[in-house]
């Protein structure tokens, strides 16, 4: 049989996508792969919605005065944008899609430890998202995603639904984290020691620890805001002895580790992509693996760098500032090791690799602006200005979303058995990277000039850079749209992919494309680490 005919045969035989038909089989599935695909649909929809609000914001900022909306609407726009992007995309996306799909495959397991709870997290996501979005649109929450008191407890707009929605979304995140930790501990195939684990697994493990430990704190803190707003108990109200800064400490105790929930999975993905596309074993496996844990650990002790101008003690600011530097060191280790992996590699520049490069550069530049912010005196000028906005978008969009796209393109043939158009993919990647730069580099400069965040109108000297940023955003959006189109059409028109179009030696590629419902007919036995590309080839992953 010719290779393509063989692929067709595999594609058309029963796999996890077509084994059971009908909506009901999807809504009641316990298959981690189907759950991953449902997450993919949901997070992409969320991203489109959050991106839509971002475009509206940027259009409004095209002129110094009112452009297309009034101040109240604008304030609701940036709240919607932030809440949707963070809670409905950034936190759940990579773990929910790639974690769910590939963790069991990489461990040689048939599923995650708790498949029914896994399905439950999808429903929690849906319910939480519905309540939060409905609440923001109907009640018009205008607090920003950070809900600072006393503004959030005294605003005339409705805040309770979005707080409740975020709480429920947090439960989804926590249960995902619990599931993954237990899966990694208890469902590794024989021979898969910790030091042979794919780096993707290490980083997902670190992410899950943060999800479990940090999210409950946010949940309770948001609940307290809702209680205070509804009943006026005064926990954050100075008139009753409360301290609004206590809210900030509690909020950032979660929300700083949360940014590592957003970036560690991205690092997980690119560790896989760089090894596959450089066709080379990672440089410094232990350093990369342990730096993920290092980021998770140290990340819990730096939250006060969001409070440098809040009246926090000088001493506390010093501690938080210097500890923040250390998180940067762990990231630097990874950046150098990924770069060194390219040394003596056999590099194939395809779309996933282009996105990896984008990730690497934006993580590096964006991360360095984070270090700059940690020097405390510089942060005094930049705090609450567009500099900070640019910094976190460099990481969230420049790093995490590039990594998401890298993973999506790398694993698309595995998940759906189809290849997408490489030409369109490269063109879109270039557009996305250029559009990204055009959107956010002007924002660094706006921050330097002193333009504060969350400004509906602004003095005229900020006008030209705002126009530049909006132009970039349109380009970026256009790039994303192209990605969506060619990926979706590939499901119908794309070339049928074989089991391993990239020649990757990651464990997950030892399955058909798409995989069967039952991941492995027999439990695999692991005899070597993943991504070993020496000659002669190392032993195969499975002993039969």
């Amino acid at each position, binding site marked *: 049989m010719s290779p393509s005919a063989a692929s067709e045969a595999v594609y058309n035989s029963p796999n996890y996508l077509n084994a059971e038909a009908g909506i009901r089989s999807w809504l009641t599935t316990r298959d981690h792969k189907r759950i991953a695909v449902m997450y993919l649909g949901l997070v992409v929809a969320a991203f489109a919605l959050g991106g839509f609000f971002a475009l509206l914001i940027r259009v409004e900022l095209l002129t110094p005065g009112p452009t297309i909306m009034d*101040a*109240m609407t604008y*304030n609701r726009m940036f709240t919607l944008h932030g809440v949707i992007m963070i809670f409905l995309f950034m936190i759940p996306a990579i773990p929910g899609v790639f974690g769910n799909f590939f963790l069991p495959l990489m461990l040689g397991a048939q599923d995650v430890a708790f498949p029914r709870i896994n399905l439950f997290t999808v429903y929690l996501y849906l319910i939480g998202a519905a309540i939060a979005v409905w609440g923001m649109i109907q009640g018009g929450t205008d607090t920003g995603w950070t809900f*600072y008191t*006393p*503004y959030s407890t*005294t605003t*005339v707009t409705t805040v309770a639904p979005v707080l409740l929605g975020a709480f429920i979304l947090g439960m989804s995140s926590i249960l995902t984290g619990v599931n993954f930790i237990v899966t990694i501990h208890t469902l590794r195939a024989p021979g898969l020691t910790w030091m042979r684990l794919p780096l993707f697994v290490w980083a997902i493990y670190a992410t899950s620890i943060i999800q479990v430990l940090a999210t409950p704190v946010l949940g309770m803190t948001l609940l307290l805001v809702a209680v205070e707003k509804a009943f006026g108990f005064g926990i954050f109200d*100075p008139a009753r002895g409360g301290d*609004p800064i206590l809210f900030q400490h509690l909020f950032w105790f979660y929300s700083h580790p949360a940014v590592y929930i957003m970036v560690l999975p991205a690092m997980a993905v690119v560790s896989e992509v760089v090894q596959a596309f*450089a*066709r080379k*074993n990672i440089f*410094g496996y232990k*350093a990369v693996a342990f730096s993920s844990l290092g980021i998770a650990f140290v990340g819990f002790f730096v939250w006060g760098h969001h409070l440098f*101008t*809040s*009246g926090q003690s*000088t001493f506390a*600011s*010093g501690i938080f*500032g*210097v500890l923040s530097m250390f998180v940067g060191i762990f990231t*630097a*280790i990874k950046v*150098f090791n990924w*770069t*060194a992996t390219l*040394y*003596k*590699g*056999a*590099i194939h*520049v395809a779309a996933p690799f282009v996105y990896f*490069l984008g990730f*690497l*550069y934006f993580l590096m*530049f964006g991360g*360095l602006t984070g*270090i*700059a912010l*940690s*020097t*405390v*005196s*510089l942060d*005094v*000028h930049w705090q*609450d*200005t567009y500099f900070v906005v640019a910094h976190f978008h460099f990481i969230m969009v420049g790093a995490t979303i590039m990594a998401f796209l890298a993973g999506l393109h790398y694993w698309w043939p595995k998940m759906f058995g189809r290849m997408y158009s490489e030409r369109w993919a490269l063109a879109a990647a270039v557009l996305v990277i250029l559009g990204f730069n055009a959107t956010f580099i002007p924002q660094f*400069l706006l921050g*330097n000039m*002193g333009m*504060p965040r*969350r*400004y509906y109108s602004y003095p005229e*000297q900020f006008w030209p850079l705002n126009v530049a940023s909006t132009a970039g955003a349109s380009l970026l959006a256009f790039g994303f749209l192209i990605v969506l189109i060619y990926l979706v059409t590939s499901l119908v028109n794309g070339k049928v992919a074989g089991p391993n179009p990239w*020649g990757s030696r990651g464990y997950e590629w030892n399955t058909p494309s798409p995989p069967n419902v039952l991941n492995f007919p027999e439990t695999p036995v692991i005899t070597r680490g993943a991504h070993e590309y*020496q*000659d002669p080839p190392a032993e195969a992953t499975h002993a039969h």
Partner: protein
Amino acid sequence: MNELNELMRNLLWLPKQASDYARSVDHLHFFVFGSAMIGAWTVVATTLVFIVRYRRRHALQSTEHVEPKPVHEAVFIGVPLALFLAFFAIGYPQYVELQTPPKGASDVYVMAKKWMWKFAYPGGPNSTDVLRVPVGRPVRLLLTSRDVIHSFFVPALRLKQDALPGRYTQTWFQASEPGRYPIFCAEYCGLGHSAMLGELVVMPAAEFDAWLDEQRRSNQVAAQDGQPVAAEEVDIRGNLVEQGRRIAAMQGCFKCHTVDGTQHIGPTWLDLYNRKVKLEDGRTIVADEAYITRSMMEPNAEVVAGYKPVMPTFQGKLSAPEAAAIVEFIKTLRTDAPTAEPQKGPIYVPISGK
């Protein structure tokens, strides 16, 4: 050195440095920016060289397993760590300096409220949105908020401090360049967050002293904690309209009410007098002297339809003559009036050269 400072400042779109502290912070900024750029672009260049040099030549090309030597990881960790700690070792003392006002600094009380800044000199005048300080003398700011958290931000000074309800925070500066510099609110506080603009006016010391003396001589009341009180009493024999305009400006009315018909947070004053207005509760009334006065004292009693009930009360802050002066001023704001003098509060003059 000065040219290099100016070159970097312009390259990075930073505002003028209005104090020595701002200049030091900028020098740190340049150092961080420069070393970060060198490091980052070196990595970029390395990746590009590797991509070309080690491109894949055939599909199943194999590669060797390269293990790092301890010296590699030591360099990967040691070099960035040393650099980052150097940044911190320069920046943290600057922050400590900012948090430590010198003895002998003169105090100014800053009270932030939605959506304006109120400044009060101990024993001296109060002002809204405009802060005057002398060149070359340290000034300590004691900040608080009347409602939600605001943040006092002067980009030219590289200075920012949150103003919190229920307590005081402090910061200080010593301006070195006369000029006018914008003040922004940097903590989201609602509808008027981006309209909460102020102006720092740095004056030569002698001019400042003269201004302060003149203010105190004509001042009746000096509030210590920034409570909004009109600085001058209304002279009934004088020009009531002009006084009304001045009082309205000082009380910050123009933050929310325009005089030229523009839609804003509160109803415009243009053609307000004797206008038929529709209220939230459906009634239609005429905006006569009684209604306008009541709106200043009990603003949420009869809110105009389509507007949010966010106007604070001026009960106790405006005496009867002052309220009357404002009403008289409003009465002159007619589209067919020959001389309508638009006053939008402090006029910000853009500083040259970003």
